[in-house]
Structure formats: structure tokens, C-alpha cells
């Protein structure tokens, strides 16, 4: 036992990296033998701990026929386990299997048959389904996990599914982190997807989805593949004792066997050979969007693109980590198009370096009272792009972006939740240290870098221009 402990502690890495002379980012890093990485940031003060767990799975792991599964699965993770949310697991399990069989019959009849199937048969099965759901209710403890967290002072309770990752969040009193360890390890290991079909309706309300094939059993397959310790990172930020967190993680998450190795996702963005244009209309402000393909997170061109987005569109609140953006204030485009020429009410530029592909986006809304068209703004933005391709930007503009990046980073350290989110997502892609090396990359950007990326990516054949026109009142259905 002693030997095992020594092994655990040697795996613990104390990483204290300096952002500047006065700033240290203290991250305690520990890897369990099943591959789960634990990141710990002690932040003495109010006795609360932000507890996040992130899985490297998102809509990018879907394929035609199962689109929507990543999000639906995230909802199903709140439906309990073999231990949580149920009074008699054996009886509940047996009912669930019968429900799934019935729904499979209905699906085949409704969607496999071109005439929509035998209506009477379907009605009978639906009646049986309703009866089984009613019968199952006696064994279900509704929203057991959520209630337990709230009863113990859980706040910031949520989960989210993105293209690249899925996160589960709760903030607890410092003395109750063990509850998160128990519940999150339990649902990683023993998830059970009861109430599947009513939850699918909830997701349909949240986001209109097409009819999806996945059922109860498909969820299990998806879960077993991606919800494994070697595909996740758990983060704890707050008033905590790192050693205590590690011991609890060993005890709870350590019991879960390592999952199969996951083949990394490989993507390929086919080159775009000509300019694309889109036009739409409806009840929303008239606007212009211009997008350009850019490289993914980690590419050397990301830093200059980020600086360029900040120079063009800064002053609107910044864009967080290397997603340079802004909607007004002192950005170049705001000064030219909103203040000087008075052609737009808003204009922004944003560089989004995602994990598998990137995009640079300009957005603008024209002045209605001056009869400006989106196409007029498009010409103005192209003129500014061409100027930057030739001359680049000023040293003051570059320095401003560097100053802002540094101060925004320091400010981000004050939010435990924001810190957990940045570290967790970064860890699953290029490692959490990338948030520091990216900051270094940004501080080394030169005007030549900016001219180079502007010339490389801002070309018509690499662009998509979308123009949306407001048609308020013309398409309203009359009562």
C-alpha cells in the first residue's frame, strides 16, 4: 500500500508557471493509472470549490444518422445511474428494456415503411408505451443527482455540449467535494439512461432536431466509448487541500477501469476554389457577415490573426483566449465605419481558432437612416483589408493588443469558474500549458506576421459572404 502511495505522489507534478514577475499560475497536476488527469488550483478565501469535468467528445464525434447524440447524451447523464435516481434497479431495468423494444417497433413501422405504417398497430404500441412509462415512474427518483447537489449547496450546476468537448459543472462548499467525486465517478462508470424518450422531446424543444435514430442501447455504446477516464480531465479550483483532492480522486475515479484507446479525429478541409455568397431575409436586423477559412488552434498563424482581429474590432470587450474580437470602442473598423463615415451602427472582427479548423469573421450592421446597404460595408471592409495587406498595422495598435491580452489574462485568473473552463478545454486539446505558450506567441507577433496572414487568408476565393435583409411585417401570418 505504501508503495502504491509513493507511486501516486511521484505522478503529481507541481507546475508553477510564471506569467510575469508578480503572477504565478499554480496548477497541481496528477494522473490516475486509468488515464484520468486531475488539475488542481488552490485559491484560498471563501470556502467553495469549482468542480468541473470535461470529456473529449462533442458533435464532431457524430456522423450522419446519429446527429444530436452528443447533446442528447449530455441530458441523459442527469437521469441517474444504477445507484442514483432509482429505488429498485432490477425492476426499472426490465421495464426500460421493454420500453426500448416497443419504441423500436414504433420507429420501424413509422419510418421504415413508406406509407407511414399501420396506424392501429402504432396506436396500440403507443398505448402500451404510456402504460410502461407510468409503471416505471414508481421506481424513479426524479432528478436525484441535481437535488442532491442543490441540497448540499451546489451552484453553477450545469452541463454543456460543444463541437469538441462536453463539460459537467458544479461548485460546492469546500467540505463537500467528495460528493462530486462520488456522483461524477458513478455516472462515468454506471450511467443508466432511463426516461430516454421524454428527454428527447426536451432536447427537441431546446434545439429543433431532425428525427434521430439513437435509442437507449445506442446511448450505452456512445457512453462506453467516450465517457472513460482516459478521455477526460477533472478540475478543482478553490479553497482546497490538493493532497486531499488527490486522495479522493484515487478513491472514487481510480476505481474505474481505463477505456479503450480512442483513435484521434482527423479532419480535412477541402480547399475552396471560388468565392461563396449567401442571401437570407426575415425578422432580424439587416447585416453583413464575411468569413474566411483559417488554420486550427495551435497553428503559428493563429497568434497574428488574433492580433489582427483585435486591432480591427477591439474595444467591445475583448474576446477571451485567442479569440480576438470586439464590437466597437477604439477598433479600427469602428472608428472608420461607425464614427468617421457613419455608415454602420456596429462592426466587429473575430478570429476563432477551433480545434479542427479556424474561421475569421467580420460582422457589420448598416445605418438604416442613411440608406446604407450591406454591400457598401463589404466594400469598405475590403478596402481596409487591402490597406493592411500592404502596410500592416501601427506599432501602437500591436502594443495595445499585447497589453490587453496580458491584462485580460490576469483578470481571468480571478474567476475560478473561468479558469476551470479555460484549463479544462485547453488540456483536452494541446495541454493546459498552451494557455501560457499562446500568450508568449502573441507577445512575439510582428507587423510582418500580420501582413503575411492578411495576404494569405483574406482572398476572395477563401471567403464566404452572407447578407441578411430585414423584412419585418411582410411575412407575418395575420390572425
Amino acid at each position: 500500500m505504501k508503495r502504491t502511495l509513493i507511486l501516486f505522489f511521484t505522478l503529481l507534478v507541481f507546475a508553477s508557471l510564471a506569467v510575469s514577475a508578480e503572477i504565478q499560475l499554480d496548477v497541481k497536476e496528477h494522473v490516475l493509472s486509468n488515464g484520468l488527469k486531475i488539475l488542481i488550483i488552490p485559491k484560498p478565501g471563501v470556502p467553495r470549490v469549482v468542480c468541473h469535468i470535461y470529456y473529449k467528445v462533442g458533435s464532431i464525434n457524430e456522423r450522419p444518422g446519429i446527429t444530436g447524440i452528443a447533446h442528447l447524451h449530455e441530458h441523459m447523464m442527469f437521469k441517474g445511474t444504477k445507484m442514483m435516481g432509482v429505488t429498485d434497479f432490477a425492476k426499472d431495468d426490465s421495464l426500460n428494456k421493454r420500453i426500448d423494444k416497443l419504441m423500436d417497433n414504433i420507429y420501424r413501422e413509422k419510418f421504415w415503411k413508406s406509407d407511414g405504417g399501420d396506424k392501429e398497430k402504432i396506436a396500440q404500441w403507443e398505448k402500451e408505451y404510456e402504460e410502461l412509462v407510468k409503471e416505471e415512474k414508481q421506481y424513479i427518483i426524479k432528478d436525484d443527482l441535481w437535488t442532491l447537489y442543490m441540497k448540499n449547496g451546489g451552484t453553477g450546476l450545469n452541463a454543456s455540449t460543444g463541437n469538441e468537448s462536453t463539460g459537467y459543472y458544479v461548485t460546492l462548499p469546500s467540505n463537500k467535494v467528495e460528493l462530486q467525486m462520488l456522483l461524477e465517478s458513478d455516472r462515468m462508470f454506471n450511467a443508466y439512461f432511463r426516461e430516454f424518450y421524454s428527454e428527447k422531446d426536451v432536447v427537441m424543444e431546446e434545439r429543433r432536431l431532425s428525427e434521430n435514430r439513437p435509442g437507449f442501447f445506442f446511448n450505452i455504446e456512445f457512453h462506453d466509448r467516450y465517457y472513460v477516464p482516459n478521455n477526460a480531465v477533472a478540475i478543482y479550483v478553490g479553497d482546497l487541500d490538493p493532497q486531499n483532492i488527490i486522495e479522493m480522486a484515487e478513491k472514487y475515479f481510480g476505481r474505474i477501469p481505463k477505456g479503450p484507446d480512442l483513435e484521434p479525429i482527423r479532419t480535412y478541409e477541402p480547399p475552396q476554389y471560388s468565392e461563396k455568397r449567401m442571401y437570407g431575409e426575415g425578422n432580424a436586423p439587416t447585416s453583413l457577415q464575411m468569413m474566411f477559412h483559417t488554420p486550427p488552434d495551435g497553428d503559428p498563424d493563429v497568434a497574428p490573426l488574433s492580433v489582427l482581429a483585435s486591432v480591427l474590432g477591439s474595444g467591445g470587450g475583448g474576446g477571451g483566449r485567442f479569440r480576438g474580437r470586439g464590437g466597437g470602442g477604439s477598433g479600427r473598423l469602428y472608428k472608420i465605419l461607425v464614427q468617421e463615415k457613419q455608415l454602420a451602427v456596429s462592426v466587429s472582427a473575430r478570429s476563432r481558432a477551433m480545434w479542427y479548423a479556424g474561421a475569421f469573421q467580420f460582422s457589420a450592421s448598416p445605418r438604416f437612416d442613411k440608406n446604407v446597404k450591406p454591400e457598401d460595408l463589404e466594400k469598405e471592409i475590403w478596402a481596409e483589408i487591402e490597406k493592411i495587406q500592404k502596410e500592416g498595422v501601427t506599432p501602437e495598435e500591436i502594443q495595445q493588443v499585447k497589453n490587453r491580452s496580458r491584462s485580460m489574462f490576469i483578470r481571468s485568473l480571478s474567476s475560478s469558474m473561468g479558469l476551470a473552463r479555460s484549463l479544462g478545454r485547453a488540456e483536452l486539446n494541446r495541454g493546459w500549458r498552451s494557455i501560457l505558450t499562446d500568450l508568449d506567441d502573441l507577445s512575439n507577433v510582428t507587423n510582418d506576421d500580420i501582413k503575411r496572414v492578411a495576404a494569405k487568408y483574406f482572398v476572395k476565393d477563401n471567403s464566404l459572404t452572407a447578407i441578411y435583409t430585414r423584412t419585418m411585417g411582410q411575412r407575418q401570418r395575420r390572425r
Partner: protein
Amino acid sequence: MKKRLTILFTIVLLVFSLGVAQVQKPSDLKFPPLKYEPPDPKDFRTEFASGLRGYIQEDNSLPLFNISAIVHFGGLYVPKDKLGLDSVMSDTLIKGGTKTREGSDIEDRINFIGGSLNFRVGDQTSTLSLSVLSEDIDEGLELFFDVLMNPEFREGPLDLAKASLIQRLRQANDQASGVLSREYERLLYGDHPLTWQPTQATYEGITGADLKAVHAQNFFPKNIILAASGDFKKADLKAKVNKAVSGWKNKKLSIPMFSKKFPQPEPGVYFIQMRTNQGYISLGHLGLEDTNPDYFAVQVMNFILGGGSFTSRITTKVRSDEGLSYNQGSRFRYIWGYPGMFSGYVQTKSSTVGYAISLILGEFNRIRREPVSDDEMETAINYYLESFSNSFESPQSTMSTFADLEMTGKPMDYYKTYRDKIKVVTKAKVQDVANKYIHPDKCVIMIVGDFEPCNAGGDKWPGPLDKLGKVHTIKLRNPLTGEEPK
């Protein structure tokens, strides 16, 4: 070799099974005790020159400096012929420059040092906030007090702000959620300063002189409370603030008071036609003020009814049991000095609009009729007690919270006694306040959606909607003119 492997395999299995056996059910967990006392406002209260007050906390964990000025002035106090002045002031206090600086120079400088300077006028208070690195504290404070004390509202930025706000008016009826919230308030409070809306004409009529007059009348030291936190010495900061505000003259405070009597709208359905695939719904009536002694019991009651997320009855019924919606619940909204609003809310597809409303009304009635369960009480009360310290996680928001307490005249031991007041709420009290503050027979049910499919209903609740009460149709006013449609 094979024998060794078998032994090793057995050990691994044993260790693994022992590990699993160690894991308890949540009810077996024993948590170490945790004692937490909230910070006491008087430890942070500071008086400055000219009668300016503030709450200040030194926090040396990061080289940052944050300061906010909370001013007792808001949109509610704007006269009817100048409606929208609050929004124009929000957009021009900084951009309009000061006596000695252009607004763009102020913004450029703040951006260059990587700081932020924001101003927003709310319903009854306005807030100017600065955040800079502590190395820039002197420059930040100079810009902060210059903007707070000497705004010029120059014509160029003023015209830009007005043009942008008028353009935004054109979009006022685009989004169902925005329309619902505005029209629901208008129905409950009637023609009252709380519901008045600006028009193109009122925006166009606002001048720099109007803004300067309103500023001069309301922005003075005794009408402002500061909240500051960060890496500084309290005495140093106090000296810097005193230097900035000494000589700043006070005025006589004149806050208008408005009627607290509101018309009782006829109960029933109020429908606003919009072609959307979901109905957006609010149902309820006026509520209470947060200074009411029943406030704490109402909080607990509403947590159980529809405020406690997945632990609440409305979410369980409408979302978890029936899968009708993603967003649903109930809320009591509070307005300083006036009764707030109570509402149940849900967004659901058109065919289940009537059904979802009927389920929410059912829960309104149930919580009045039956005592809540012991489990529900335990969850609600424990949530408030155990999550209490969360409110004090950020030093800056704690200082702002204390400034707000003083501004609204609430007792300064509000947080010290908060948990005791939650602890004493009983099941009987919950039922009592449910009967006192929820009146299903007086509810207005406002729906923004597509009438025909909403009225048709679905299998579980076939329409028509007049089963829920008389259906009134609300036609939206022209947001540019404020005129009723002909």
C-alpha cells in the same frame, strides 16, 4: 510464469473489488464541519471627502484594481417627454468626452492599458465601473473621476448614440422573448413610469444640455456610493479619492415618487401574434417588495414551486415528466420601492402551449392547497444555507452588494441574519405565503406565438385557449411612434 500471472490477476481483481466496495451511497458520506461567517459591511465602510461614501476591500491576490460608482439615478426618474435619456446617457457618458478630454481619447487610453471602463443606467441606479491593472491605478482613477464628474456629452457622439438607439427601436418587436417581457409588464403596471417606452421623437428631442442638466442634478457625492477592491493600501486609495472629489459640490436630492396603485387587469388570456414555432408564455400578477418580512418564506416557497431548477415542481412536471419544454419555472421579480411581479413561465411548441399552462396553473393551486413535503423543505432550506458563502466569492461584487444595501436602505445586518431568517421558515409558513401571494384566479396569461396552432392544442389538451379564460388580442404598438395600430 502462468501461476505468477494468475496470482497477479487475482490480486488485481481483489484490489479492484475492494475499491468498489469502498464506495458509499451519498447518504453514507460524512462531511467535515464547515463554519462560515459572512464579511461585515462595517469593516469595509469608508467615508471620503464631500460626503462621498464607499465600501473598500484590499485584495492582494492579483495585481488588479476595480472600482464602481453607484449613483441613485435611473430611467424611472426621466420625464415622459425625455424618455430614452437613460439609454442615451449610458452610451455617451464616456464617449461624449469630458471638459478636457475627447471620449475617443479616453477609450483609446483605457484600451491601450488593457483596462475597461463601462457605464450603464439602470431603472433606479446607474453604475460607472473601472477595471485596470494595479500598476495603472493612478491613471485609471483620473479618467474614472473625470468621466463621473465632468462629462460633456459632445454633439458628434450624441448624434451617433441617438441614431443607433433609433435603429434598435425598429427591432423592438422582432424577438418573442423581448416582446413578452415588455408587454407583460405593461399589462400588470398599466400606464406608469415603470412601463413607459421611448420613441423616435423622444430620442431625437434629447440634447446635450438635457444630459448635462440631469447629470448636474443627480451626480453629486452624497448621492453616490463607491465599491472598490484590489491590490492597494486602503489609506492610499482613500487619499487619492479624496483628492479627486474634494471641491465637488453637493445638491439637494430630489427623487420623484410615483403611485404604487396599479390597475387590476382582467384575468384571462392575452395573445400576441408572432409567427414562431414555440409559444412564449408568462402567467401571473403583481408580487411584493423585497423589504416585506415574508420575503424569506416567499423565497423558500418559490424555490419549491418553480425557482429551484430541477428540484422544483414546475420543472419536474413540465420538463422532466412531460418533456414539454427546456426552460420553465416561476419567479418573483423585485423592484426597489414598488411591488414586484410574480410569474410562471415556459416556452413550448405551439401544440402544447395550453397543456403546459394548465400544468403550471395546477402547481399554483397545489402549493396553496397542500403543505409541501419534508424533503422539499429540507432541499430548499439547505440550498440557501449551504450556498450562502457563494455570494461573497468576489471581493468586488461583495463591496457592490454592501453599497447596494446602503443605497436601498436595507439593514446592514441583512447578510448576518439571512440564514437565521431562512432557517425559521416552516411548512405552514410556506403554505401561508403561497395563499397570500399566489392567486390563480387573478392571473393574466400572456402568450406570444402563432395563434392557430396554439389555439388548436394537442392530444393531451385540445384547445381552444378560451378554456383558460377570455382571450384578448394585443396588437403591438409601432415602436418608433408608440402609436396603437389602427
